[in-house]
């Protein structure tokens, strides 16, 4: 697989001459500004500063040569679309066009170009997540052939002490080898944001293993930031999964009760969702994961 050569695509849409420029032409601060400008009218804009954009690019394997900025006769971007690439899979993310330029279909133009680029890079699948309620984006992706895969939850737990009963258990911190073993044993691939490569790229992955008196065992991994815990992964290979999930979350949150917690893209039908809710997690919004088979 190879990255496509840097190239400009120039054309005219209904009313404007435009260029599609590799995102690598801009620094992360400029990319953050362009991205933020495309989100100003969103209900959940999720803006980024340069550091956050840089972390995002690194953590999620964004290929900046393949990713695009759409510009009109100046160096100022009016749209952005990013492509994550991992082996034969591609991930479309951060797609946006500034409000006053949306009538020119630059979103469709950028996605079409990214699909072509992913195919040139011999990717066999492109995936994405769209926020539930973003009907224009959802309709665009359906029109392009993307199909729904699953509903994903973005959930939060505010800081707070645990008042739930503590189960009897034995807990040990996980070494780097132990963490790698848990990742290797993972039964299903997460969404792009929380699949193994993203967790490893975060650089701050921690974990614990637990044993219960009845012989059940399990493990939890998470990413620790300065103020927040995120990307929690529960591994329950032996025993009652819900009982083990309870024990894992109880241990995690008892050790750090005052950490804010955010979990992105928990599958709606995860058997652990009711256990998360017991610990005060609640839904903030939903996404639909979609995918497109590439020829």
């Amino acid at each position: 697989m190879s990255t496509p050569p840097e190239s400009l695509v120039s054309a005219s849409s209904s009313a404007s001459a435009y260029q599609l420029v590799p995102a690598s032409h801009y620094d992360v601060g400029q990319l953050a500004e362009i991205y933020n400008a495309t989100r100003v009218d969103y209900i959940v804009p999720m803006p980024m500063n340069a550091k956050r954009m840089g972390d995002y690019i690194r953590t999620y394997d964004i290929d900046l040569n393949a990713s695009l900025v759409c510009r009109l006769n100046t160096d100022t971007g009016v749209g952005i679309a990013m492509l994550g690439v991992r082996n034969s899979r591609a991930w479309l993310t951060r797609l946006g066009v500034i409000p006053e330029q949306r009538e020119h279909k630059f979103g469709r133009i950028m996605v079409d170009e990214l699909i072509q680029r992913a195919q040139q890079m011999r990717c066999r699948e492109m995936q994405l997540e769209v926020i539930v309620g973003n009907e224009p984006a959802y309709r665009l992706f359906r029109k392009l052939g993307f199909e729904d895969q699953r509903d994903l939850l973005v959930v939060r737990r505010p800081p707070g002490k645990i008042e739930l009963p503590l189960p009897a258990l034995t807990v040990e911190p996980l070494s780097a080898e132990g963490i790698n073993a848990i990742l290797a044993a993972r039964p299903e691939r997460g969404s792009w944001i929380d699949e193994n490569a993203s967790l490893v790229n975060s650089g701050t992955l921690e974990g614990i293993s637990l044993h219960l008196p009845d012989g059940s065992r399990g493990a939890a991994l998470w990413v620790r930031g300065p103020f927040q815990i995120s990307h929690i992964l529960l591994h329950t290979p032996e025993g009652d999964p819900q009982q083990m999930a309870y024990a894992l979350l109880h241990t995690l949150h008892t050790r750090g009760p005052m950490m804010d917690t955010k979990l992105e893209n928990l599958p709606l039908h995860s058997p652990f969702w009711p256990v998360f809710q017991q610990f005060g997690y609640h839904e903030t919004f939903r996404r639909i994961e979609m995918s497109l088979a590439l020829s």
Partner: protein
Amino acid sequence: MALIIVIEDNEMNSRLAARLLRKAGHEVLIAEEAESGLTMTMEKHPDLVLIDMGLPDMDGQTVAAVLRQQDSFSQLPLIAFTAWPEDTAYEMARAYGLDGVISKPIDTRAFAGQVNAFLQGSGEKL
């Protein structure tokens, strides 16, 4: 007159909020990111903080969580400043220990009154 800190990355929103609050007689400081907003709050000890829930370096909820863990800010009026749907905004504000929600876009006629109510402890309860 109160000292109010507005933590908001959108310049149009922060300028409008500041103009309306200064017209109401308050002193207003603006921070565009969570980190500078937290530093400013800890240094200046304001009477109220308006927190945008979507900041470029950290979520507004996390800002509130960090402040509420400090004894000196446990009672500081923290108001979520957001365009989220009302149900979601109120639920999140309650969960994170904020005192209220003011919706975006700003209602320019009501905004100063809404903030004054929170300063006086009579703001709309969550």
